[in-house]
């Protein structure tokens, strides 16, 4: 299980970093955006591209970013646009940026600042883009509120369409847009997962008892999602029966930080944790043929879900994880020490 270091390492990030995002809109290359997290230095955003033979990670662009980046998301329809959430001590903010036209030189030109999402009164947690395709909708989540924005990138305009507050007692820490139902958005709220309908901005349902740190919708099957939790490791849920998880995976030795479905092969789940590993799991989502697996623990079905590989060649906790949309057999991981590692999972895809 212990994987040898087969991945390609990009050591260009000079500072600690948490965020890496796949550039979905870039159809010609497999590229990732990574943002650094340094209190004391000028932070950078790196546009990293996998060279065509797939042997090297090349820095396509290096841009200065004023504050340390806690969240970075790439725009699904424009490869040059991305959003960041940043803080600096007490201050915080969320912005949409545009990468300036590159003229072959990559020595840190300034990013073009498009929009500031500055309606927030709490610490901003994340920004969500419309799941795929061109749309002007954007969601930003802070500790106590959920904002739905309508943005116009060309005119650098943004206005709040609607807003929902979760109340003082709760504490939002993350969220995701349902790729199957564009009117549904989910947020991590203390010990539960809450779901909102964007049309009414009202809560529709929730999964209690989920101390989630991160979660991800199944890209292929509606109602299914996976959560990463401190106690329970990785759990798979079906929203139609939110009382109990459908499946459990052991997760990581310490906290499981991120969990991601493969965009193409939804039974492949990638997770990274503070034990400095990235784990690749095979977890068949419950389907129609799953009825028989209700029976005992030793049913063959259960044994099929397993840890496929554990990538351990990291020096520090791995907070950033991104599958490539262009080539689903590639993922990039980012450990706190600023190392980006790209790995291939082809052999596991074939094996299924």
């Amino acid at each position, binding site marked *: 299980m212990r994987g040898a270091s087969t991945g390609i390492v990009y050591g260009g990030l*000079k500072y600690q970093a948490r965020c890496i995002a796949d550039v979905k809109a870039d159809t010609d290359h497999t590229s990732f955006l990574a943002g650094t997290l340094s*209190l*004391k230095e000028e932070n950078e955003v790196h546009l990293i591209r996998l060279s065509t033979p797939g042997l090297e990670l090349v820095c396509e662009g290096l841009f200065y970013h004023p*504050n340390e980046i806690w969240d970075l998301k790439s725009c699904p329809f424009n490869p040059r646009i991305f959003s960041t959430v940043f803080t600096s001590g007490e201050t915080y903010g969320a912005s949409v940026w545009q990468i300036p036209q590159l003229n072959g030189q990559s020595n840190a030109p300034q990013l073009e600042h498009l929009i500031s999402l500055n309606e927030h009164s709490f610490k901003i947690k994340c920004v969500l883009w419309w799941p795929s395709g061109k749309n002007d909708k954007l969601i930003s989540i802070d500790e106590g509120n959920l904002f739905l924005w309508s943005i116009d990138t060309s005119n650098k305009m943004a206005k709040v369409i609607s807003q929902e507050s979760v109340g003082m007692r709760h504490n939002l820490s993350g969220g995701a847009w349902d790729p199957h139902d564009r009117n549904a958005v989910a947020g991590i709220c203390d010990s539960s997962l809450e779901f909102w309908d964007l049309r009414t901005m009202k809560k529709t349902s929730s999964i209690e008892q989920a101390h989630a740190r991160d979660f991800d919708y199944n890209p292929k099957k509606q109602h299914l999602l996976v959560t990463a939790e401190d106690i329970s490791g990785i759990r798979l849920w079906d929203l139609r029966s939110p009382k*109990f998880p459908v499946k459990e995976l052991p997760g990581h030795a*310490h906290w499981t930080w991120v969990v991601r479905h493969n965009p193409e092969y939804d039974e492949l789940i990638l997770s990274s944790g503070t034990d400095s590993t990235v784990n690749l799991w095979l977890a068949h989502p419950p389907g129609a043929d799953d009825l028989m697996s209700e029976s*005992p623990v*030793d049913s063959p079905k259960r044994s099929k879900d397993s840890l496929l590989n554990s990538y351990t060649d990291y020096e520090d906790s791995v907070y950033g994880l991104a599958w490539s949309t262009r080539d689903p057999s590639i993922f990039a991981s980012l450990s706190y020490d600023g190392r980006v590692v790209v790995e291939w999972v082809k052999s596991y895809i074939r094996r299924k």
Partner: protein
Amino acid sequence: MDEKAKRTRELLASFYSTDPSAGGGAGVGAAVSPRKMASPDSINSLSFDPDVYMSLLVQKLNLEGLLQKHVEMAAEIKNLDTDLQMLVYENYNKFINATDTIKRMKNNIVGMEANMEQLLAKITSVQSKSDLVNTSLFEKREHIEKLHRTRNLLRKVQFIYDLPTRLAKCIKAEAYADAVRFFIGAKPIFEAYGDSSFQDCKRASEEAIDLVIKNLQAKIYLDSEPIEARAEAVVLLKQLNFPVDSLKTKLLEKLEDYLMTLQDEHKETGASAMDTLETSEPSDIGKLSDTILSLKTPTDTNMASVGEISKIICAYLIIFPDSERRLIELIQDLFTKRYGIIEQRVKERMTSADILKMIRVIWEDVILMDDVLAEAALPAFSLEAARSIIRQFISTSFSHLLLEVSDALTKSQPTPQKGSEESSLQNTLEGSKKAVIQGSLDLLLEFRQLLDDNLELLAKLRDLIVDWVQEGFQGFFQKLDEQFLGLCGRGYIANPISSVIDAVQVDKVQTGLVLVLAQLSVFIEQIAIPRIMEEIAASFSGGGARGYEHGPAFVPGEICRIFRSAGERFLLLYINMKTQKISILLKKRFTTPNWTKHKEPREVHMFVDLLLQELEAVGIEVRQILPQGLVRRHRHSDSTGSTNSSRSNPTREDKLTRTNTQRVRSQFLESHLAKLFEQKMEIFTKVQYTQESVISTIIKFCLKSLQEFVRLQTFNRSGFQQIQLDIEFLKNPLKEFVDDDAAIDFLLKEVIGAAHERRVYLQLFFKFNVIQ
């Protein structure tokens, strides 16, 4: 001589046949003609031609021959002549005789007619005289005949008048057969004249016969009567057109009642047997049973009553040959009920000795019954019943065991007082260990009794029992595993439907219990299973009713595997629960204050105390349950030196605060480089079932969590100092918990390092605020 006779005949023939051509002449001629053709020299033929013959002779014979022929012929002629003479004489003689006879007849016939007439006259006179006598006697004869008839009638009447007394006499003599015969004889008369002349008589005799019927009924009901007599009585009743069927049903009902009472009795005796078994020593059974009125020892009563039943049934079979089916039903019903009682009882916990006793008692009865009523197929029936009883027994035994084990686990749970908690976990562990191993061994012992018993019924079930026991253990341990999961609130993994309630209470699960479960799982895997396996191999091998392709029902390897993983899971769960608890504590600590506006640290923050308290509690729990492990130094210990030098040293921090950003950056690189050269710290090693391993794992996890929490915050100088202070304070107490100084040092340093990285400098604040 022959020749002579022949010739004579021919001569006679020619003599008597007047016309040779007519009267068979045609036939003879036809027959002779070929001969004539063939032998013209034959003298005897009809168409004999002397000339031809002569010429032939002359031609054929010489002289001497001719002479000889001549002599021959002359002799023949002479002979013929004498023959002819003889014939003539004889005929003549006959003729004379006939004439004589005719003459004599003529003489005799004269005077015969007169005699005949005389005879006729005499006969006529005799005839007339006889007629005379006949007419004169006719009247008297008629009279005599009439008298005779009257006498017969009178005798019959007399019989009928005597019938009542006669019947009474018969009744007195108990000669019911005669009585019935008499009555049936008289019955036609009664039917004809009963309303008029013989009214009294009829009534009296009917009364008498009623009495007879009554007596007969009584006789049938009387069990003391010999069976033949009773059978006879039934036959008699049948002759009297008495409705025997109702009688039969009544009798059968009676039998049924009897059986019912017997059952009740049996129930009582069963109950009392149970009582005796429960309340007193086996030797007291006799004494105790005396008090239960007529029931001596339970088995005796059963024996006696079943013996009786079998006798009764035997009798009924003879009395009512057509009642067999009903009887079979009754008996089967009886045994079904009796087995039912056992089955009922099996639902409670009882020893196999009891079961055996009960089955044996019934089996004896069954054998007894089988002799009488073989058609009821009682042995097969019993086999079936015993099968289900034993099966149920085995399964209930296992479920009881399961209950006992979980009882042992949960019993001490609701009393978590501080004082008693010291040893309660240990008690729970010991108790549940004992429950598992002792319970299993006891069960095996019980089941062995079933096997060792020489009861024929059970011998047939031997293979099945072996299989059931093995299956039972397999199922038991699987269920036990599920139960364990359920106990720690994770039941939904194994069984998503049934444990809805359990799963909700995840938070309420006691961490100590989880630890107990972990250790218990190890115990089961390492000690209980091998032990049970041995036992099973010793006395429950074989089986094989399942067929070889399925293999044995009990797969210890699988169970071991289940419990090994369960043990690991519980241990991890325990650690997880504990770290989670501490993690919540830490989360509160780090999310509540505004670290960027932290004031100068005055004292160690109280979360440190809470943390140490938690760890103390863990220590108490762990020390109770887990064994002490060998002191194992962490592998990292040899590289501490290099860490010390390269990592940021808390004492130097003040100096660092004044360094510029360039310095910070180089320091980041420096620590990076240091990390590269440093041996990678293995924090997440495999947990062992020892106190030290568990505690140190928990502490490591906590410190790691601490580090992660720190990384999520931004500190000002005072905040950073607060962290430094807290960590310094933690250092020594933590080292008391764990021997692995190096790991603790490393992790604490990591925390401080993380805090340092997240420490903000005032000038930077300004800088970035300006930019924004």
